[in-house]
């Protein structure tokens, strides 16, 4: 059981929105979601600040032709990773790319995507209690998500990124099949 977190880079560092998503993913891990696996796409150095963000494992997805942003291909790779690792949740920042990739993942899997989440608590196998934003944060929604794999985007102001955490234990490369 693991929680996958899509990490977007800003230069050589983790994008601030992804740092918040990692911190959010860490709260799922504490609630039974398992250790956090950070997923990065494309070549380039793994940001050194991942280790301080509570990440247990880094998966850097590279494949010939997958050098730029490709939301459908990224979603496909996330789906394969989630299946291979028995993930309970896939988390991304509620950015243009994060939202788009998870929407593709939702469309591929037929699973719901809960957008703009502020918190998520496991309420049993495949069941989550969520708080998410509506109307750009003017309204909060208490919601229940029933899905074998929780797909969650994290509201921009959901959580302050953590500054301490587990050091990354290892890094590995996975090749996307398509």
């Amino acid at each position, binding site marked *: 059981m693991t929680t996958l977190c899509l990490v977007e880079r800003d230069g050589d560092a983790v994008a601030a929105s992804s740092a918040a998503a990692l911190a959010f993913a860490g709260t799922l891990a504490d609630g039974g979601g398992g250790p956090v696996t950070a997923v990065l796409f494309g070549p380039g150095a793994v940001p050194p600040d991942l280790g301080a963000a509570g990440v247990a494992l880094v998966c850097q997805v590279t494949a010939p032709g997958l050098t730029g942003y490709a939301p459908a291909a990224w979603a496909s790779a996330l789906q394969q990773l989630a299946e291979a690792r028995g993930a309970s949740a896939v988390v991304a920042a509620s950015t243009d*790319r994060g939202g*788009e990739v998870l929407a593709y993942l*939702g*469309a591929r899997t037929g699973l719901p995507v809960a957008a*703009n989440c502020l918190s998520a608590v496991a309420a049993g196998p495949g069941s989550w209690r969520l708080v998410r934003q509506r109307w750009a944060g003017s*309204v*909060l*929604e208490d919601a*229940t*998500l029933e899905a074998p794999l929780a797909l969650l985007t994290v509201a921009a102001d959901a959580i302050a990124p953590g500054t301490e955490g587990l050091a990354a234990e290892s890094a590995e490369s996975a090749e996307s099949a398509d």
Partner: protein
Amino acid sequence: MDILVCVKRVPTVGGLVQLTDDGQDVDTRMSGFTVSPHEECAVEEAVRLTERDGGAVTVLTLGPAAAADQLRDMLALGAHHGVLLETDGTEWGPIATAAAIAAAVTGFGPGAFPLILCGNEAADTGDFQVGIRIAAALGRPCVTGIKQIEVAASALRASREYRGGQEEFELPLPAVLGVREGLNLPRYPSLPGRLRAKRAEITVRRPERQPEGLRKELLRVPEQPRQQAEILGHGADAVPALLGVLAELKVLPRGSGGGPA
């Protein structure tokens, strides 16, 4: 080219959203309904494309019978046809909505609507996924966040902003685009447009609802930080304190708060 534009009826909300007593909906007793600015721009773009290249714009919404009002608003802007996927008014999530729209598109026959435009995300739920789910169901390519569109015979170019730069895409038709406010400046409806929209016939279909695993339990308004007003005084007695505040705000130079003249 025939273009389908999907819009969503949403309450018109101001700064502070009021909810119904049961916490299930936005209280609309004192407000009206509209569509999101993204969708207004989508309709405007579709109308411009058909004015230039021919074809017709069909605007579609899923919602209660009253959502025909929003279709007529869009018809007044120049759309040619309206389709209402009528529901009982309860909220449908992105999976059920996209499935109903995809089924409706398929029902128009093969090759219907080479271009489908959606708003980038709904104004209320901000789910950011209906367009992508429609595209997946129909086997079409999709790009979201679009702020510029150029259509050729069998393909289109679309671009969007990303971190201060520009991302450009070429898509074969048929395709689905999620468009964003700023794509254009929507026109105001003309009087003839309003009259035509009032008389226009709306096609009504009643879709089947597909179940989905995300369920709304309760809506609530987050606590706002309370602002404490400080009474500086009454009448002329308040002037020294008022001058002090104005000096603090650098509206008046310090030392000018010596009291009334």
